[in-house]
């Protein structure tokens, strides 16, 4: 009895803590679901900082409506929790937009919910092509593995490489990358001599390196989730003499994301990637973005592709709020932006009306040391790349 009573008390406390905060008049709320704790906490941080930079540059109101962001922590891929959080945001916080989503399953989980509530979900990261097919209310400002990989594969072929081995982490995005590379490269006339899918939890990459070596490939296309695994892979690549053998190391740009470059150290030198954003991108808008970021947060070391996704996502949300005059009508909001083209820190962007995914420039980059600091140096641009992985309905 007593213990049950305690439960009730606890419940009451929980309720009070949760129920506080009356809705402000004429405020459009945006619920952001992202990892703010756990191993991927930096992602949430980059989202939040980019949003704040955007608001500092463009004001917190649009068309007379205040845009307020509400953050919810989802530390790992956990679709059930994602759904529960989204439900809370919609029902309790009465948000007009959902945003964020680092992992694909977390984004997929809210599809039925946004359909029913008729609110748009702006995906800042989750990069599996198929997501936007699941609901007409998804809009995505990041990239897909297909988008980054197709130009890379074509480029690799052009440099004269004919034999490539793919090595990807054994999960959705990795398999997307593998398929995209294989399809494109073989269409161009090259040969993928071995496709290795590495368990996500691998700590030692030496055996994969041996396999890559034995395959006789001239280059390896690799994709792993950013963080310790990429670091381990890059180190193993050097330690096992693959670099000395002259094997090229290429992949989508996640593997050399800016926050990890410091730890990767010289092991990362010479890795060739294609990606939509580099903090070192040379444009006035990017410089302004970086400068503002430095001003607000003291450092811009963590600015990376997730920052760009959130920054442009915020832009889209502002546009949608403007178009619907702050009213809650997801279908109308998406309709209003689905042909939108705009300039972003990463370059020119345009939404593709069918996939509601950004068509954007892909940049070929090489990791180099500039002023003693490792950066992703852009050396070539592949303009206006669509999401090649979108199959449509």
């Amino acid at each position: 009895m007593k213990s049950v009573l305690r439960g009730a008390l606890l419940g009451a406390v929980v309720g009070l803590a949760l129920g506080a905060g009356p809705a402000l008049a004429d405020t459009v709320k945006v619920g952001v679901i992202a990892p703010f704790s756990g191993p991927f906490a930096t992602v949430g941080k980059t989202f939040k900082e980019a949003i704040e930079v955007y608001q500092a540059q463009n004001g917190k109101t649009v068309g007379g409506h205040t845009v307020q962001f509400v953050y919810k922590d989802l530390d790992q891929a956990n679709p059930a929790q994602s759904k529960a959080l989204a439900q809370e945001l919609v029902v309790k916080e009465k948000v007009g937009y959902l945003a964020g989503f680092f992992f694909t399953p977390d984004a997929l989980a809210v599809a039925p919910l946004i359909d029913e509530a008729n609110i748009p979900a702006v995906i800042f990261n989750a990069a599996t092509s198929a997501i936007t097919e699941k609901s007409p209310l998804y809009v995505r400002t990041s990239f897909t593995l297909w988008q980054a990989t197709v130009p890379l594969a074509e480029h690799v072929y052009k440099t004269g490489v004919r034999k490539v081995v793919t090595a990807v982490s054994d999960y959705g995005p990795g398999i997307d990358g593998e398929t995209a590379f294989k399809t494109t490269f073989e269409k161009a006339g090259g040969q993928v001599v071995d496709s290795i899918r590495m368990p996500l939890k691998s700590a030692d990459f030496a055996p994969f390196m041996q396999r890559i070596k034995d395959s006789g490939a001239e280059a390896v296309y690799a994709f792993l989730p950013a963080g310790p695994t990429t670091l381990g892979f890059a180190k193993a690549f050097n330690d096992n003499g693959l670099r000395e053998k002259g094997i090229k190391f290429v992949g989508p740009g996640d593997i050399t994301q800016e926050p990890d470059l410091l730890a990767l150290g010289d092991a990362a030198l010479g890795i060739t990637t294609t990606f939509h954003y580099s903090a070192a991108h040379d444009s006035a808008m990017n410089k302004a973005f970086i400068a503002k970021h430095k001003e607000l947060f003291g450092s811009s070391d963590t600015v990376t592709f997730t920052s760009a996704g959130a920054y442009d996502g915020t832009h889209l949300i502002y546009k949608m709020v403007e178009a619907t005059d702050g009213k809650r009508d997801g279908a109308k909001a998406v309709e209003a932006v689905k042909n939108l083209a705009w300039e972003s820190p990463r370059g020119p962007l345009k939404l593709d009306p069918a996939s509601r995914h950004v068509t954007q420039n892909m940049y070929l980059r090489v990791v180099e040391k500039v002023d003693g600091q490792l950066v992703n140096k852009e050396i070539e641009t592949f303009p206006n790349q669509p999401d090649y992985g979108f199959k449509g309905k």
Partner: protein
Amino acid sequence: MTAVATNKDTGKPAGKGAPGRLGRAVRDHAGVPVMAALGLLGFWLFPEDLGLMTRILATALYVLSLDLVLGYCGIATLGQAAMFGTGAYAAGIAAVHLVSDPLVLLAVGGVAGGLIALVTGALILHAHGLTLLMLTIAVVQIVQEVANKARDWTGGSDGLSGIDPSPVLGLFRFDLYGRTSYLFALAVLLVMFLVARRIVRSPFGLACRGVKEDPLRVQALGGSPRRYLVGMYAIAGVFAGVAGALTAVSTGIVGLDSVSFTWSAEALVMLVLGGTGRLYGAVIGTVAFMAIHHILAASDPFHWMLFIGLFLMGVVLFLPGGIASLGERLSGLLSRSPSRTAEGDRP
């Protein structure tokens, strides 16, 4: 790995004419109605938090399943998510390809969870201690890898989506506000709780508690400890499977996280926080853990780990029976009946 909790659900009233028999009987039978009342009160008080609260209820059922193995059999496992996830995926796959009735889906999940527990339990339950712990971990890792590889069926790391259950009993649609989900989950939890209580008070439950204390002695009584362990492991698998199916039905998606080592470990943490070997300890632990997580994560996610870490250490050092034992200690202090403290006391 046993022996944290010393208080046991005795499963029957103490000796005839013992003082407080009436009080105990009242407490005995009031537990479930009180839980139901609190559940409904929550529904009425926090109509906007039903999504989270539904998750808490489903998780409570999952943690309850762990209590059946750990609290009543003394099996230390870090692989309970194998059963939860199997149930969730089985229900999810059935929902996508075969049926959509939520009750049928729960049954599918329960059967799947029970079967995997029966098979793996029969294989590994001869071991003890660290070896058993490692075996349970290995099982959950293998199940997760199977789920990851069978992308055509499970969606792999993208998760299994498209689960769209039909209205409960053909009457109540799963709505946006989560009202149906919540009440459905509450009803399932209460029914399963009653079933679990029935089982732990049955002859079988009594035998399992004997095995937990001393398997060799049970053997000397003519019993077969291994059969009890495997039996209870399979029953707990059914419970975990139903919990997984309930999560799948109420959220409409199943992810690889539901068969992870982490999810197994979290269940253990929640259970021990609440108190093992009591059943309702599992419910209390889950509610406390998830509610606190929600509050802290909303204010500052970085503090969550620090807090839960300190909380865990505090419980181990100062409240070895878990939160649930707090009530028992208080009632022990209030009514200092000497015989009571010695008996299996149920609050």
